């Protein structure tokens, strides 16, 4: 997909996820908006996936470690045709499989997540297994910045470098906020890049909302260095909706009718500028 089309797709996904959250009255809105461009780059350009055959042996594997940011992921899977888009209306409702965290009963989702700090270990296991089997598939894990405080992430970081998993790519949605506020006030993460480099990863700090940059970087083939890659994607929590941008309380929250209308106007304006 051309970059211009990807930009339009990211706007459409933001529109879908806001409408879904508004309609179903549940959602982790801020993080869903900060991670949208990362997911769009992965699903519409970088990763090999087949919506008609979710278990395709040649697919790339994806783990959403920050499981609460599930809204963008399921809107993308629906848009790609992994399941019927009408099902998005059941998000978080009685009896649904579209619950508030990734659920692998949903076609296209590999792993149940939700408890923070788990996803990178699972991705390490996938990448290790693929190496052992001599398979070329790649593995991607998207993490939150808040969950970098979990010790298990650093166990996984150690193992990814130890096993020389250059088929593994981690992405941190670095929106600098977590539920209680600024990450550096809750539990300081900096120097985050230096910490990951010290653990043996090939670290890059990139603009997490520039689709050209995301596609170039995430799409770069494994280089045989034996180093797993880590992208610190600088993002804005609530990206695309002025009232939500950089406001910690939008970690979760449901826009009312007026705010939804404002959000849709802003996205339409953005679309006009993209055309």
């Amino acid at each position, binding site marked *: 997909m051309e970059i211009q089309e990807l930009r339009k797709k990211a706007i459409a996904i933001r529109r879908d996820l806001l409408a879904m959250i508004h309609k179903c009255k549940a959602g982790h809105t801020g993080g869903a908006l900060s991670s949208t461009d990362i997911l769009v780059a992965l699903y519409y350009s970088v990763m090999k996936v087949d919506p008609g055959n979710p278990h395709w042996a040649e697919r790339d*594997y994806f*783990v959403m470690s920050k499981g609460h940011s599930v809204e963008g992921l399921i809107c993308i899977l629906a848009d790609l045709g992994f399941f019927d888009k009408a099902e998005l209306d059941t998000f978080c409702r009685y009896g649904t499989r579209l619950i508030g965290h990734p659920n*692998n009963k949903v076609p296209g989702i*590999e*792993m*149940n*997540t*939700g*408890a923070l*700090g*788990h996803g*990178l*270990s*699972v*991705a*390490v*296991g*996938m*990448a*290790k*297994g*693929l190496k*052992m*089997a001599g*398979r070329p*598939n790649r593995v991607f894990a998207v993490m939150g910045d808040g969950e970098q405080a979990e*010790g*298990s992430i650093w*166990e*996984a970081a*150690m*193992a990814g470098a*130890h096993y020389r998993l250059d088929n593994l790519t981690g992405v941190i949605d670095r929106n600098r906020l977590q539920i209680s506020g600024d990450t550096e006030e809750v539990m300081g993460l900096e120097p985050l890049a230096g910490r990951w480099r010290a653990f043996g990863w090939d670290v890059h700090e990139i603009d997490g909302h520039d689709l050209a940059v995301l596609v170039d970087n995430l799409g770069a083939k494994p280089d045989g260095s034996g180093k797993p890659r880590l992208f610190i994607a600088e993002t804005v929590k609530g990206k695309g909706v002025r009232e939500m941008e950089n406001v910690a309380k939008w970690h979760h929250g449901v826009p009312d009718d007026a705010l939804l209308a404002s959000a849709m106007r802003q996205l339409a304006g953005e679309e006009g500028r993209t055309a």
Partner: protein
Amino acid sequence: MKKGLSCREAFTAELEELARADRRIVALTSDARGSTSLAAYANALPGQFVEVGIAEQNEIGIAAGLAAVGYRPYVCAPASFMSARSLEQFKVDVVYSRMNVKIFAVSGGVSYGALGFSHHSIHDIAVLRTFPGLRLVIPCDGVQMVGLLRALENSDLPAYIRVGKAAMPLVYRAGTEFEVGKAVRLRDGDDATIIVCGEMVAGALDAADALAAEGVKVRVLDMHTLHPLDSEAVIAAARETGRIVTVEEHSVNGGLGAAVAQIAANHRPVPVRTLGFPDEFLVAGGSADVFRHYGLDATGIVAATRELLLSGD
């Protein structure tokens, strides 16, 4: 009874055989290849062995990832850590995600009796019986270990296999087959039933034989699978023998006895006595000393059974 291999030795020998036939089998350990008797396996099959270092949470997550790409992982590590430190990873990454990961939990219960509460796992039955779809087995000897391993390997469901450290007297003849979730009736009788698992089985058989010498006929059920539990066997025992004694290397809170009492209360209320560890930090000692201290040996089981028979209710 003659002693056989310890369960862990029987397990690793059988696992090596299974792994030679199925290259998808892989063993993981967290710097525990010694305590899990995996050194020979690791040397023989280095391509099917993953060392994770002392990082149990990561170990379970990695095992789930290996399963997600088609492997059949066995995580081999002490029960005390597997049932606590990495419990959330087991809950979410394995059981909830329905990944085919099997934990081989060694030195369960009070195998590390003298090492303190940090190294005891007398809570694992209680918590793991609440994990839907998980199969929890506690074999009593090396023969049963092999039989249950073969049965578990035939399925893609996750499992937790808890074994003790010691070599156990052989209860079963070599080659005996077992069905997961189906108790084995080791002694017949209709005065009472002893329901037991793991290292307590041998003592329960000695107790039943001692009681038989006094003319008391006691049924003995080896409840090797704790989840799903063979409730039919429990209900039949309640109906046909009227009294039940349970014996386990576990806290009395939430273990085999609690499960049996719940089934009996719901379906066929009869007097039940639950032998296990009380709600306290346990006395230090080798496991045999700890068992004796809490009445979890043949003498204690005989006394509890007699008391139940005389209680008149």
